[in-house]
């Protein structure tokens, strides 16, 4: 039986005081303690990216982060992108460009894209592909995903591309 540690973290804008098992991963904390099941468990080894979330603004594989490590940090999950019930331009662009088929990779790949656009508002196709290189998709072949991210980037820059 493992021991517990106390952490305070801000997740999707809300601050939580939590008691977590020392060997609990951030992914487990999100899905099982907070019922934020948008973030998916895929490979559990950092290869597929389905568990991607932002910790202090940086995209990481939450399956490889211990829950205790987010003490004092802010975390953003896919649920945090649609604040107030309105879809983020990335989410809307994925729908508009047919970039979601089974949907399993989508939350992780959208969080990776969000991290890219936060750093680089005008990414080239190569920069987009590099940013999502850590996310695997079995359905789409990535082309619609790349187009959706480029379209969302333009919306965020003030244009309106449907």
């Amino acid at each position, binding site marked *: 039986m493992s021991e517990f540690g106390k952490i305070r973290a801000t997740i999707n804008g809300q601050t939580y005081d939590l008691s977590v098992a020392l060997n609990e991963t951030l992914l487990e904390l999100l899905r099982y303690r907070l019922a934020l099941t948008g973030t998916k468990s895929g490979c*559990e*080894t*950092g290869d597929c*990216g389905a568990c*991607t979330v932002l910790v202090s603004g*940086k*995209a*990481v*594989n939450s399956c*490889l*982060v*211990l829950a*205790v*490590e987010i003490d004092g940090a802010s975390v953003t999950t896919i649920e945090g992108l649609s604040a107030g019930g309105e879809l983020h331009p990335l989410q809307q662009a994925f729908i508009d460009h047919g970039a979601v088929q089974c949907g399993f990779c989508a939350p992780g790949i959208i969080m*990776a894209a969000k*991290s*890219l656009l936060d750093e680089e508002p005008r990414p080239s196709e190569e920069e987009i*592909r*590099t*940013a999502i*290189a*850590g*996310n695997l998709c079995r359905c789409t072949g990535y082309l619609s995903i790349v187009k959706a991210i480029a379209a969302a980037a333009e919306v965020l820059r003030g244009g309106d591309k449907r």
Partner: protein
Amino acid sequence: MVKMKEGKLRYGVLVDIKRIPEMGSIRPENGVIRLGAAVTSRAIARSPLVRERLPLLSRALGLLGSMQIGNRATIGGNLCNASPAADSAPPLLVLGASVKLIGARGERKVPLENFFLGPGKTVMDREMLTEVQVPSPPSQGRAVFYKLGLRAAPEDIALVSVALFGVPDAGGKNWQDLRIALGALAPTAIRALHAEEALRGQPIGRKSAEDASRLAAEKDSDPITDIRASAKYRRAMVELLVRRALEQVTREIPGASKL
């Protein structure tokens, strides 16, 4: 983390050292860049200071893994894990880096070429790696890093990697100094000493490049056949990549004779 989840590593107690301030800084000091062991590979790759003073290291660490991995992988971790394919090792070997180790017996500084003992093994003995120190390379030199992966995205593990730093002599006709390091071609990352010797003082050109790349493949490399590639393929690739690296470095040297 991955090995712990697979049950290959088991610890009763883990101490998180990532929040110690000195471990997280990148500082220039007297011509040496001091990289804290806990600085992430992505932070180093994107650091304006590293991009300007150590572009070879910036490029290599940008290819270490996906964005998600780069935001967690640290330079200390990459070295202590001591994979023969570690992406930080060939550039740091070529740049003449040293590591600072702290343990019960005190502090010591170990040149990186003496640090690795074998796959997953280093000279550390109940010690902690706190810093990587990288001297600024001579300004007239040019460097290149190549990493061959299984798919088009180079962020996967290296089948073969080559870091090369070349300094021409004052006339630009001969190599004054050459440092070449190879990854995934031996039990540890290594300097290609036979290839280097074949180039030092030699005319910059096709003949010396062909001689050196052949020596890198035949004498310096000691590859294995594994799930990713055969030894024969690795040798063929290192010969090609060393030659291409020499061609590229030559192209970047102003006034050097062309290959």
